[in-house]
């Protein structure tokens, strides 16, 4: 039985990773999850300098999901290279570094800094809804998507994944723009912008007013978008959005995702990634599927 998949020349032992920002760099989850069993570890977004993030409260629960506005708190690329990369190198898994920035120059600085580091891929976060500059400002305009993809591609030594926002009218327009800019892989979806009002305090539930919605409630939207993008571009896709079980993950794969990320589920089930890995194998056995690649985009 083959569970390995190929993302722009990077071979993952299985298609399961976790979504950026839900798993740190794996240190906190290492006591629950054998990181060797994951196809890849995707780090929390890292910028050129430390970012303190947003004021609290930063999260709120909503029905079947949550809102977050962490604001990409991160230690900056220096600490990341000294501490997080050596930690991850101890494991037999692929390392995908999520890169964030306020300006194109910020992104390039991090990308250049990572050029000679032992990381396998870069995921370019042009879709965070919780920061005022950068992030989603790049991800909602096809010209900006193409331009930043081109710029990053000029400097990147590793294959680049462009992470797309669902907060657009037609996500295939952004996917095509990223493809035109030279992206190697697409990942989707980032969170959906939402809001919750605390009726007792009569104010916003989170300090940032809006937050990115994630969790099982967003999964049908994410599956639909993965399906649309898979049919619009020829790039491999990392699908995510509400994946908590192998059944969820298989929906994304059948819709056209080559790999999948487990996000919010990590917060309530620290074993979720492993559950998905095992569940996919069980499914393949029960359906007599020899190669997981035969499932990708099977549903037309």
């Amino acid at each position, binding site marked *: 039985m083959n569970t390995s998949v190929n993302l722009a020349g990077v071979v993952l032992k299985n298609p399961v990773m976790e979504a950026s920002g839900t798993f740190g760099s794996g240190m906190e989850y290492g006591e629950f999850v054998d990181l060797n069993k994951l196809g890849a570890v995707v780090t929390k977004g890292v910028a050129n300098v430390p*970012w*303190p993030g947003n004021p609290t409260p930063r999260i709120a629960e909503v029905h079947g999901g949550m809102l977050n506005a962490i604001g990409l708190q*991160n230690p900056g690329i220096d600490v990341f290279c000294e501490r997080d990369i050596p930690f991850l190198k101890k494991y037999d898994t692929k390392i995908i570094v999520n890169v964030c920035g306020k300006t194109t120059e910020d992104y390039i600085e991090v990308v250049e800094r990572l050029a000679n580091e032992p990381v396998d891929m870069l995921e370019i976060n042009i879709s965070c809804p919780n920061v005022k500059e950068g992030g989603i400002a790049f991800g909602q305009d096809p010209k900006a998507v193409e331009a930043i993809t081109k710029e990053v591609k000029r400097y990147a030594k590793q294959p680049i994944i462009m992470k797309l926002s669902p907060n657009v009218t037609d996500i295939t327009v952004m996917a095509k723009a990223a493809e035109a800019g030279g992206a190697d892989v697409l990942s989707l979806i980032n969170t959906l912008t939402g809001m919750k009002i605390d009726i007792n305090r009569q104010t916003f539930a989170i300090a940032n007013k809006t937050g990115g919605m994630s969790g099982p409630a967003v999964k049908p939207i994410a599956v639909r978008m993965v399906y649309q993008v898979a049919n619009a571009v020829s790039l491999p896709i990392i699908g995510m959005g509400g994946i908590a079980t192998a059944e969820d993950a298989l929906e994304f794969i059948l819709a056209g995702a080559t790999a999948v990320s487990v996000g919010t589920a990590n917060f309530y089930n620290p074993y979720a990634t492993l559950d998905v890995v095992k569940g996919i194998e069980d499914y393949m056995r029960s359906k007599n599927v020899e190669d997981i690649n035969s499932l990708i985009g099977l549903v037309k």
Partner: protein
Amino acid sequence: MSQHFKEQAAVISSKRIGTDVMELVIKTKDVAANSAAGQFVNLYCKDGARLLPRPISLCGVDKETGTLRLVYRIVGKGTEEFATLKEGDTIEIMGPLGNGFPLDKADKAAILMGGGIGIPPMIELAKELKEAGCNKITAVLGYRDELFLNEDMAQYADVVIATEDGSVGTKGNVLDAIREQGVTGEVIYACGPTPMLRAIKNYGMENNLITYLSLEERMACGIGACLACVCKSKEKDEHTNVNNKRVCKEGPVFLAEEVEI
């Protein structure tokens, strides 16, 4: 750092001890045996629409029997669900989480200050301080009106009470009670709403007392990964190297001068 255990705990009893205050006693496999005063556990809802765990403080830890006593206030749908638990049910938990109160100052006279649902962890702390040899413990408990756990506290400490409506003890808050009833000590340990902790921080500094505060913040994972529950800290934090300590991981107990609240 201590290990975290995620397990199904068995409900031994669940009862109402106040209008909206519940006492839940659960038997755990590993969590209780590794827990200490000031730490907390995550409780998970059975209703899948309520994803995030609810962090609940430890009111009582019995390492020998492996039981935890949790006292919480019903404040929303999650705690409403917990309130329906009965003997023989199970509940998913993870813990122990965070760092507890230090016990290395048990040789000094202690003032324990609990406000509202910040009172429960003070019970276990009083017990552990007494076991550690602390021979002067004064507990100052602040309530809106209805008392709970004050009799439990009396086993371990001299109890001073403040009520907002003045129905019992000093009319006002815990600091009003300290002043009115002449409470003295060398170390303050406090848990309660943020405005109360802010006032206690100032009081501790004015009176040159070592002051430990147990903070609260909205959290998701409980193990330091999601970065939801940060507080402003004086020192750079170990994770991000800014000034954001994680309440769930570096806390919830902090030296007062270490945090900006």
